């Protein structure tokens, strides 16, 4: 019981860190030893205590119902077939729900893990019987559903996976929302060819190394990737070379209080996993010491918009970005791995349109420097484009350094 409560406390903390609801709203539930656990109504999700998690009963009502979340009825039905459910008030998702009846992501993570997310409207969009009937039915077939003007519900086989889906919904919504605001031509973006990936895997507590300093470097980088939103929860990957092997973290973006794995993998060993092969390829064909792959949403906005316009590079508009990277190459996601590696080595970072960004360096700290710079560059450029849309700044092209076009 203590373990499941601890996990819920950690997920609540992570939800607040990612701004997925206000301080008190949203709710988390999980099944453990045939018992349903749910957060208390009005509890502060970022500061949950054990007593904030109550047992309302799943088959028969229990006294925890008096304190249970307002969406307990819906959670209770979802947990008849899933192990965990989360409801949040993700702002981009709520905004997108005003625009579409179904969220069809253009980005790799959204396409691969969600495919599509239904948006449903209710007369009483909070804690109603109508929701209690419909949402669990939809979630039998889909990992996520969005209540119009309210927010997403997700279900999964574990708390981590539910949070993963929630973050992907938030992430894909943010990308879609911005692309819509920018008026991007998405006809080409919708046909991008993304690699196949396996389903979400819970961390197994793999320990690829005993080196405390190295472990600490990985943890720091993971935590930064999470807090800076360089990649949705448990996405992205990080590795360091260790002779003929690499120490590899497959679920990079993670707060320090939620565990992730470190694996030890032979560089020459054939692996099916796209991301492992990508890291291996870098080490096989370069002398780089560390590799990071992230899915920064603003880099995806920029790259997906670019696909429609036929551009091949992101040229920073800000001084710091321009100083570090006159231009950052953008390639299609099905580009040959060798070409990717060449570009990464040459430019330190390369963006795969809609998929993510590959960065290389000497240490994990060095690589995440590139990823976080990319995030800032793309954030600023996207916001500037929006400012241009509403007419408060001039053409964005006038702010870029011309030299970037020939870099």
């Amino acid at each position: 019981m203590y373990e499941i409560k601890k996990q819920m406390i950690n997920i609540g903390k992570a939800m607040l860190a990612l701004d997925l609801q206000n301080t008190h709203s949203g709710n988390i539930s999980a099944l453990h030893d045939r018992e349903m656990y749910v957060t208390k109504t009005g509890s502060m999700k970022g500061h949950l205590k054990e007593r904030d998690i109550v047992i309302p009963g799943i088959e028969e009502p229990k006294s925890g119902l008096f304190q249970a979340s307002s969406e307990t009825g819906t959670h209770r039905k979802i947990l008849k077939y899933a192990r965990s459910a989360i409801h949040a008030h993700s702002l981009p998702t709520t905004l997108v729900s005003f625009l579409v009846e179904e969220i069809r992501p253009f980005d790799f993570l959204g396409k691969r893990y969600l495919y599509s997310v239904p948006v449903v409207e209710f007369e009483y969009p909070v804690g109603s019987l109508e929701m209690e009937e419909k949402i669990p039915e939809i979630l039998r077939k889909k990992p996520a559903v969005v209540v119009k003007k309210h927010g997403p519900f997700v279900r999964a086989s574990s708390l981590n996976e539910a949070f993963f889906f929630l973050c992907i919904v938030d992430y894909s919504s943010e990308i879609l929302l911005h692309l819509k605001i920018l008026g991007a031509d998405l006809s080409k973006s919708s046909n991008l060819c993304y690699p196949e990936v396996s389903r979400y895997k819970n961390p197994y507590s793999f320990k690829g190394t005993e080196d405390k300093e190295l472990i600490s470097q990985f943890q720091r980088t993971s935590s930064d990737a999470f807090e800076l939103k360089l990649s949705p929860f448990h996405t992205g990957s990080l590795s360091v070379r260790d002779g003929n092997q690499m120490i590899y973290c497959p679920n990079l973006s993670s707060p320090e209080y939620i565990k992730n794995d470190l694996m030890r993998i032979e560089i020459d060993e054939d692996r099916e996993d796209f991301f492992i092969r990508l890291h291996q390829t870098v080490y096989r064909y370069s002398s780089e010491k560390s590799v990071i792959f992230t899915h920064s949403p603003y880099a995806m906005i920029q790259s997906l918009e670019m696909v429609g316009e036929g551009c091949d590079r992101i040229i920073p508009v800000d001084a710091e970005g321009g100083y570090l990277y006159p231009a950052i190459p953008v390639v299609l996601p099905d580009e040959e791995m060798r070409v990717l590696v060449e570009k990464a080595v040459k430019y330190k970072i390369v963006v795969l349109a809609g998929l993510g960004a590959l960065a290389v360096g000497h240490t994990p700290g060095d690589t995440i420097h590139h990823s976080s710079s990319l995030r800032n560059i793309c954030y600023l450029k996207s916001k500037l484009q929006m400012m241009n849309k509403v007419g408060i700044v001039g053409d964005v092209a006038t702010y870029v350094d011309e030299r970037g076009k020939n870099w």
Partner: protein
Amino acid sequence: MINGYNNRGVDVNLSTGKINYFNINEDILIKTLGGRGLGVYYFSKHVSPRIDALSEENALVISSGGLGGSLAPTGGRFSVTFKSPLTGTICSSNSGGFWGSIFKRTGYDVLIIKGKASVPVCLYISEGRVDIIECPELWGKTIPVLTDKLREKYTKKARVLGIGPAGENRVKYASMVNDYHRTNARGGGGAVMGSKNLKAIVVEGKKKFIPSNRELYQAGIYQADKLIRSMPVTSMAFPELGTDGLLKMVYEHDMLPHRNFQDVYHAAEDVAKISGECLRKEIFLSKKGCFNCRIQCGRSTQVGKKKGEGPEFETVALMGANLCIYDIKEIALANYLCNELGIDTISFGNTIGLAMELYEKNIIDKKNTGGFILRFGERGILEHLVHKTAYREDFGNEIAEGALRLARRHGAEKLAVVVKGLELPGYDPRASLLQALGYATSPRGGCHLKGGYAITLGFFGGSREVDRFLVDTTAEHIVTEQDSGCVADSLGVCRFSYFSIGENELSRIYSGFTGVDLSPNDLRSRAKGTINMERMFNTNAGFYRKDDTLPLRFFNEKILISGKMRAIDRETQFLPMLRKYFEVRKWNEDGIPSLYED
């Protein structure tokens, strides 16, 4: 004339048989809102604080809520105000059921009953008609028989508020019962009715009320409904588990009284035997609700061939947990009998708890108890004791006087768990300073409702949840809770709806219904006025600051609560809270309202 009210009252003098109809000034309605506020206003005006509560001079003032006649969720409750024969304080006692709603539809907002009939009588009230009817044949009848007979006499739509043998015998905590099972339980209103030879009040009415501003009224109702239907406490917990569903939670917060409040150390498996979950499994038949109720916390239950309603949480806490009787069926049977004979289960259970402690401490023995072995956990005695109490037979005559008098009689006043003579309900105040201050300052004595229903803040207040061991801010919270409770009592809505809604919704419904634009703050300021009137009555009745206290047990006996040995420290916790309470209420240091306006 204000829309939504009848603007009419009726004053019945049972001594003379005179019935006086009068108009109610609209200022009075706006100032008091109705229900408790209106009742306290007329009671204070008609009754001198120093009278004997069981004399002819006492009055019963029955008033319908300001939202009575509307479709506000749970808005059919009514109040009865009287001087309590148990405590000597003013006592406003509130009930649900359907009687209150129908009373308002007879065309009166308030009914004042004074004097004493020479023979047992009933009052019959319908639209435009009030009759005093002699009914000696009904004297001695239990509530179900009384109700059946009166409905046979009038119509099946007639609603009956009456007393059982306990009220006739002036049991100090006899209740008034309407619709068979709904009670104005606390303070002994049934004894006051009995002292007036008034057996029942029958109402039949169909008057309809049209809201003044339909849009505002409906917006308020829509929002209130939405919240009540969405918050699990009102949409699932109470409907599925009834009020007894609270038991486990109260136990888990180390608040559930045990052995006459000596401690809170129950075994979890014992609590499970009397919990709401157990009730649902063992004796539950169906849900029951009051007028226009979306919550449906009532339980229709059956034990063997006997059917009834309840038991409610407080009954299970006081007549079960507090006495170490962990048998839901035994408690339910005793509860059925309390409802039939007209006895408040809280005061009864608490007084039996005291008797058991006296017995175990060898202060009384079998000679005093008429042969009863009164050990904690003693089985098979509850029903007998209820019966003996209602008819004041043997030891029942002592039990009928309540815990304070029983304790005094045996020189053990400090063992009585009462405040101002009213027996405490099912929450040990050592586990919540909020509740402690609420008990001490409640106008009718040790009551969780009039004292501010602090457990809602203590552990299921949602984002409003307050640390129950804080000292500094407790007074502010308790004043707010007491004021809100008074708003609910005055408008005639159920406290349980307050778990989901509040003055924001109610002010809209009220303004839309009556056409009188009152903000949430306006509602609360009316409630403050009513609480000030109650306080003034009590002051004039001889209650002073020294009476705003708790039983010594809670100051002197430390018990393990939330991992710490705790009692309430009088000097560093209780008195500072009380001083702050007076300050927040704008009362002087003796606890007298300095801004009191008549």
